[in-house]
């Protein structure tokens, strides 16, 4: 079932084109990663999905309903955590969590207390005195304690310590196990890699890559470390070989995934003693896209 559908969404701020024909589709039960450099348009996309910005063109639906017109209705099934959380300074954290939950209807008080405990949050302090991470916890608790079907998270861990980040990742996993959907925008690529089923990469307002991490990996380079009986003089003549580094007999290099077959044949002819390959990290994928000038 489709939870979220963006169809050729564009957004213009005056003369500035912030989004250009962005399309994406989230299926129920998946965790969808959304990555891209600063100012690429992630938050703008998310604000359009939440009906806070009106798209200049294109259509966007949540649960089959229009995101702008039916915002109040579809938000009943959504939970949102922004990267920078600010709340009413004179209220306590606990009060704010309650209000946020109440606005979406009835909620489970036990679940709220459970999450307050898990995130080690002190709900009795005035909001003005919380640190950045603690303010973020307010939104996280209000999200995890709700019974939303779609979780929209925009850099939700930018203020959390590693321990809390771990709790957060568990939380997201549990949400997924309950058949809910998650849209996760993040700069922490290891987090995206660990959690997400599919990923979209956005740059300068355009989606430049979209798909499952497994598919994407095919398109990218593997790290190879190899030790052979005979020297590998001809290696660099093969297509799709990069960054060769020699350490005595041992060679480190990167290889385009499509070139695996011919290269392996050559290596085995030279007598392999040791061979290690590691899959490409999301970071490599990311770097490759970002470093390119002018897009694909």
């Amino acid at each position, binding site marked *: 079932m489709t939870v979220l559908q963006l169809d050729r969404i564009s957004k213009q701020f*005056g003369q500035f084109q912030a989004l250009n024909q962005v399309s994406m589709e989230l299926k129920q039960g998946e965790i969808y990663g959304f990555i891209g450099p600063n100012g690429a348009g992630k938050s703008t996309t998310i*604000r359009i999905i*939440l*009906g*806070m*910005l*009106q798209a200049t063109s294109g259509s966007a639906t949540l649960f089959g309903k229009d995101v702008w017109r039916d*915002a*109040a*209705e579809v*938000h*009943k099934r*959504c*939970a*949102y955590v*922004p990267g*920078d*959380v*600010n*709340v*009413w*300074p*004179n*209220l306590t954290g606990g*009060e704010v969590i309650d*209000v*946020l939950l*109440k*606005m*979406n*209807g009835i909620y489970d008080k036990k679940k709220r207390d459970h999450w307050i405990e898990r995130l080690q949050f002190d709900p009795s302090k005035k909001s003005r005195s919380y640190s950045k991470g603690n303010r973020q916890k307010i*939104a996280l608790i209000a999200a995890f304690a709700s019974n939303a079907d779609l979780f*929209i998270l925009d850099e939700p861990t930018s203020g959390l310590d590693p321990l809390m980040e771990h709790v957060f990742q568990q939380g997201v996993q549990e949400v997924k196990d309950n058949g809910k959907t998650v849209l996760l925008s993040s700069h922490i690529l290891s987090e995206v890699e660990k959690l997400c089923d599919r990923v979209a990469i956005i740059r300068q307002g355009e989606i430049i890559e979209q798909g499952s991490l497994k598919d994407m990996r095919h398109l990218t380079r593997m790290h190879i470390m190899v030790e052979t009986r005979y020297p590998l003089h001809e290696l660099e003549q093969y297509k799709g070989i990069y960054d060769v580094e020699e350490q005595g007999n041992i060679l480190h290099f990167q290889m385009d995934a499509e070139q695996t077959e011919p290269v392996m044949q050559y290596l085995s002819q030279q007598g392999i003693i040791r061979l290690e390959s590691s899959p490409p990290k999301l970071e490599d994928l990311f770097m490759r896209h970002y470093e390119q000038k002018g897009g694909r």
Partner: protein
Amino acid sequence: MHLFKGSKWLLPILLRQHRMRLIYWLAGLTLITVTVVASYQSIYGDTASREAFGLTMENPTMIAMLGIGYDNYHVLGSLFAMEMLLFSAIAVAMMNILLVAKMTRDDEEQGILELVQARSVGRLSYLHSSLVVMLVSNLLLTLLLTIGIGSLQIDGMNWHGAVLYSSLLGGTGIFFGCLTALFSQLVETSRTSMIFSFGAVLILYLLRAIGDVEFTALSYISPLGWLARAYVFTDNDWWPVVGLLAAAILLTLITYYLQSIRDIGAGFIPERKGRKNASALLQTKLGLVFHLQKTMILSWLAGILIMGIASAAILPELEKFFQDNEALQAFLTANGSLMEQFILLMMSIMIIFISAPVIMSVLRLHGEEKAQRTEVIYSKALSRAKLYRTYTWLAVLIACIFPLLLACSIWGVGFFAADEMMAWEEVFGAAIVYIPALLVLAGIALFLLGWLPKLISLVWLFVIYGFVVIYLGDLLDLPKGIKLLSIYEHIPMYPSEDFSWGVILSYLLISALLIVFGFVGYRRRDMEG
């Protein structure tokens, strides 16, 4: 309706968030009003004193400042309304502007609205709840004032008048609250929204002043001009209240419409684009500190100059009135001309307005600290001493330059407008004597910044108290000792009083000490934020 969904959860939250602010304002306004009402009976108990008061009220200065005179001087309530209604209305307008700007644009800038809007609430709920809080506050104010005035059971101040007087103030509050909500839609920051709103108060006040003295039509354009035309406690006309509420409803509808179609964080009047590189001015310390507050400083300067020019512009009216009125002539020549008295009175009031930018420039250092921006600056190897010094310099510069510019505007315009203007030495002297008082205020603010940063807002009490003493001191017949608690009161009203080096030098010494001690505290204490 789905546009307003969730308002019932937001309303109590906003009330809780702003309750202390509201309590202070409501208590302060009610207290001052009731004190004045109570004192009226003793001061204007007999007919003769009322007639004397009526006579002074007919003079164009008073009309320009306080609104048209009523003919019914024998009714005590009428006198009271003449003196108190307009300025109370401005105070109520200020309360509403600050409150609404905070609840609407400021909360949106902070990102609170974003968090709320992501829940299942209507697009107008936050705005709607904010306006309801504003409405409730003004209704409460109306109720408190009605009870306060009515229950004193003073002859000439009946319940009907009390209800109308309070409703006029409540109505003004609602009007300016709605106007601020509209400006908050149009512009992108709460600061700009407040500047627009305060600007509107100033313009409407001046329109009314000119209208009341010269072109009556202008007074009907300005809602502040409507107030006096209710003739509270005599005719008791209700149309101004109806007018204020009707205007407020219209403003609200436009505001709701604009909010419902716009993006979050966006406005309709684009903010100016910033420069890419820091200009040469910005790269000096004083330049940076000035730049941060340029809008605040320049808008205050504009407001003060406009007031100066406007008050000088009515000097010819004053002369004409003076010539026509022989009784008054005899009465006044004893202690200086009417013009001199008027200019000195204006000067003492304008100095209080100038106190605001002086104090705000110091408060800004505290604001930057709370917003944790000083951390960035300190980590750039700028010592606390330098930052403190730079802010002090700016406050001192404002305190010295503003009075001079004010004197320029009054004397310059007066010279051309009036037949016989005061000598320029006297006008400038009248302004310069207040500079030490402004420096003491800056010193108090800096001292609080150094030692009691949480209580720094207390410095405003000195200003408010100074205003109360000037505006109501004679009226309330405050004893000399109590008046002298105001720091402005020790300053000689040069040239009608003798210039005193003693006062000036001791003020300068006090302010220097405060600044130095403030620095000692500032260097020792932890940064907030």
